[in-house]
């Protein structure tokens, strides 16, 4: 059973548009949700994260919106740039040293 789900699988936006990446999870006890960005051939890097006590977290052009009741999150990337083209993974922490990752959304930003 997949604990963390992401949609869409791939997304293409034009430069300057807002990209919206979606994530949902199964277990209501999950309380920490990081998003990782991965470029081809590299390891992922932490982009932004949110805990379940917040409903919004902003860092520059990246914003997480969190709906605890519906067990859903979304990552909004405003003013998308070609350099943002990467795969984005949503993750959830079931316990202190374990992280479940979603299947990822491959974002392409066209110039």
């Amino acid at each position, binding site marked *: 059973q997949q604990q963390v789900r992401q949609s869409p699988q791939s997304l293409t936006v034009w430069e300057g548009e807002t990209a919206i990446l979606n994530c949902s999870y199964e277990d209501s006890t999950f309380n*920490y949700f*990081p998003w*990782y960005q991965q470029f081809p*051939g*590299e*390891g*992922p*890097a*932490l982009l932004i*994260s949110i805990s379940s006590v917040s409903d919004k977290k902003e860092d520059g052009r990246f914003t997480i919106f969190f709906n605890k009741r519906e067990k859903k999150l979304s990552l909004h990337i405003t003013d998308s740039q070609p350099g943002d083209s990467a795969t984005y*993974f949503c993750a959830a*922490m079931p316990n*202190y*040293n*374990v*992280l*479940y*990752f*979603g*299947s*990822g959304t491959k974002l392409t930003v066209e110039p």
Partner: protein
Amino acid sequence: AQTIHQWPVAEIKAVGSPLSLGCTIKGKSSPNLYWYWQATGGTLQQLFYSITVGQVESVVQLNLSASRPKDDQFILSTEKLLLSHSGFYLCAWSPGQGAETLYFGSGTRLTVL
């Protein structure tokens, strides 16, 4: 500054052969260490973690084992490779707050034929 080094960068191995992958972290004492596996184009699946020398916890085994022989070293191994072991193996470390912030290495690409 902390650095993480994984070796080898890539391996091509035969089914049934043994495997040993390594990871070293420099510049950080007593890090938490993690192994992840990523199928080509797929998600990351956590395999093991270790919070101290000599202790390793399994999350998903996949017929692999892990060891932490030194504070800064994490080893992933198996005596007999399967085709399903192909993929991208990533080592990560965290500064001690569990898995809240993971710093990943550049990975090892494993192809099993």
